[in-house]
């Protein structure tokens, strides 16, 4: 029964919720933001999360993981989404660990995965180059040398790119920008010569970077997946990451919805609770439907990863498109229903609004995923 949690899953969910409640309420994000923390997340908190098994939850036991699946990881992400926890779960776990687990050699896995599971190693995917998600529009080149490749180009919105120890770099080994073929992924130490990084401050207070490669030398042994056919690996990584991100978004939108319904019950105007006004009731009920529909689609997509179902790419599109629309709708409505205080920094609602926008653009928005869904369906 994919839609009903097992007792083990319930216990993972409860552990995650308790941890988030005690250690990383929304005030945690505020503190990092207001103190201008250069990392963007708390390394100590990340160690604790790793100790709870969250970092390696989907990794096999021989690589220091818990050997569980995305259904379980999704519960952790959802709990984190409820209080906007900034952590390496997206960059290191969803993107980095997936790239190594799916495309790495045994040596790569032995080197990287246990360190990820232990919370010691941070990864980032250096992929985007333009103003929006464009999966194959890669201009960063990997030119063949006698003993490897030289990387040249510039990447933007590299999540956690400013602090990552290891970069997964998407580069072009042949063809032209936009071609699905001719793309290759490389595992590159962030400290390699010719790599320069500059942190980008994002509206949701999470960390990202602009990363430049000026003739960075990499070895053939650093290739993940197949040369020129890296798009297969890239798609597989992004499908997983998209589903994981949708879980985090589900947590965020469910939290904003709950807070808004609570507010409708306590805020009084004209001598009554504003939740008694039908104009607001009906919109709240519509949002409830959206929360429920999103939960079903996300749970199904998590199951599609774990069961390695052929329709995973379609289900990832479905989950991200729906989670994006729902998150944007509910955060916008939440601001409106909270009235003036909704646009103050003091209230958390605005932080969710900002996260919804950043999450939308990460790995492509709703329109991108509907287009991809249609394309994959043959129309």
């Amino acid at each position, binding site marked *: *029964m*994919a*839609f*009903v*949690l097992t007792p083990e899953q319930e216990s993972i969910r409860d552990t995650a919720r308790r941890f988030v409640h005690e250690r990383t309420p929304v005030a945690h994000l505020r503190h990092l933001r207001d103190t201008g923390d250069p990392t963007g997340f708390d390394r100590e908190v990340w160690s604790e999360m790793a100790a709870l098994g969250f970092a390696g939850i989907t990794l096999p036991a021989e690589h220091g993981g818990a050997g569980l699946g995305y259904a379980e990881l999704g519960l952790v992400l959802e709990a984190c989404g409820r209080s906007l926890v900034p952590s390496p779960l997206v960059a290191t776990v969803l993107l980095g660990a997936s790239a190594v687990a799916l495309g790495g050699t045994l040596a790569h896995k032995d080197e990287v995965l246990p360190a990820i599971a232990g919370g010691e190693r941070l990864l980032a995917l250096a992929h985007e180059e333009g103003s929006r998600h464009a999966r194959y529009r890669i201009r960063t080149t990997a030119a063949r040398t006698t003993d490897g490749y030289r990387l040249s180009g510039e990447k933007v919105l590299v999540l956690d790119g400013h602090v990552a120890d290891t970069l997964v770099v998407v580069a072009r080994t042949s063809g032209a920008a936009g071609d699905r073929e001719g793309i290759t992924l490389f595992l590159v130490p962030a400290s390699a010569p010719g790599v320069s990084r500059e942190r980008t401050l994002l509206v949701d207070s999470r960390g990202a970077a602009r990363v430049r490669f000026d003739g960075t030398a990499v070895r053939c042994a650093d290739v993940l997946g197949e040369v020129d056919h890296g798009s297969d690996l890239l798609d597989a990584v992004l499908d997983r990451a998209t589903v994981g991100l949708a879980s985090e978004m589900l947590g965020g939108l469910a939290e904003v919805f709950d807070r808004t*319904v609570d507010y*409708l*019950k306590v805020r009084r105007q004209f001598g*009554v*609770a504003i*939740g*008694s006004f*039908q104009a*607001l*009731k*009906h919109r*709240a*009920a*519509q949002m*409830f*439907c959206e929360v*429920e*529909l*999103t*939960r*079903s*689609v996300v*749970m*199904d997509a998590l199951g599609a990863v774990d069961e390695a179902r052929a329709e995973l790419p379609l289900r990832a599109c*479905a989950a991200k*498109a*729906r989670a994006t629309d729902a998150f944007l709708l509910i955060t916008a409505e939440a601001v409106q229903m909270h009235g003036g205080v909704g646009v103050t920094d003091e209230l958390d609602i605005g932080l969710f609004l900002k996260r919804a926008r950043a999450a939308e653009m990460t790995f492509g928005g709703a*329109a991108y995923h*509907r*287009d991809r*869904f*249609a*394309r994959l*369906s*043959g*129309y």
Partner: protein
Amino acid sequence: MTDDLERFRREIRSWIEESCPPSMRLPMAEGDEVWGGRRAVFPHPDARVWLERMALRGFTAPTWPKEYGGAGLSTVEAAILEAELRDAGCRPALRSLGVWMLGPVILRFGTEEQKREHLARIARGEIRWCQGYSEPGAGSDLASLGTRAVLEGDHYVVNGQKTWTSHADEADWMFCLVRTDPAVPRHEGIGFLLVDLASPGVRVRPIKLISGLSPFCETFFDDVRVPARNLVGAPNQGWTVAKALLEHERSSIGSLRSSAFSAEEPLQDLARRSLGGEGGTLPDPILRDRVTQANLDELAYQLTFRRAAETAAARKSAVTMGETPKPPGPESSVLKLCGMELNKRRKELRVVLAGFPALAAEDPRAREWLRSRANSIEGGTTEIQLNIIAKRILGLPD
């Protein structure tokens, strides 16, 4: 699953194998439904055979006691039966308001005499029932209904008018709400009455809709004499009975459609035929996105339907095993609301995609589009469903 249930599943599976005619496992077309009744129409001789075999085992009303025409199954066993019938692709042997709505309230509120008179005939599909709730002046505000039932000796004399009585022209009996006492507060003073539509003084007139179809009727009562023993519950208990009936309807996810559109041509195929473009991307990017949105909405609806069914089954089996039940899943009011809005949008999009041909007066797509406009009105409007979600689920104040 316990050994007993596994044995039950195997038994059901082989019974279906022996009993369900192959023609009854083909996908249904419009008009293939069997509604039973004195004037029952069977689209295929096998449909009658299938109904008789199902009814003989009590499987048309599986959880009802055997003595009243049911099979006496537990809810878990009934869920297994339903799943096996679905997996085998069996057509529903009988669609029946009597089974879905009336039977459960007769079992709960009815007299022994009423159970003996009505239940088995409902389960066998011999009597077709319709519902008499709405009146010209009582739509969403149902409790304002005014059809009068005055007790004279051992009969009620009924005067008034019901409307939107679905298929009253094909039904044999009606269960309806009548005003038994105009002097008390309006939610009291309502009775739940069973009326034989063959009684003198009953007149049924179909209502022609914008779609050209007439699935609904107006039903007029002019000094209709109804035996007092046909009242279900106490004379002023009708509202309670009606609410119980609605709750039962809402809680029986099975009465909702899980695959309403499975028989329809996929939207993208219709778009391809109409918009042209050999393979590749559909040439109209805006219509292409609308098609995708509709497909994604349907996927979300179907997955939510499955989640609701799985959650309900898990709750049932937890109760059976004496465990704490899992938290409830998505409520059926959410499914109803999303299902009807989704159906409306899809029917509209089919007309838009088809273009000029759908303007032809007899084009089925146009008729279905016009019919679908009623989806968000009948059985509780969209606005009423939103009120229910806001009040019962979200706990927003009145």
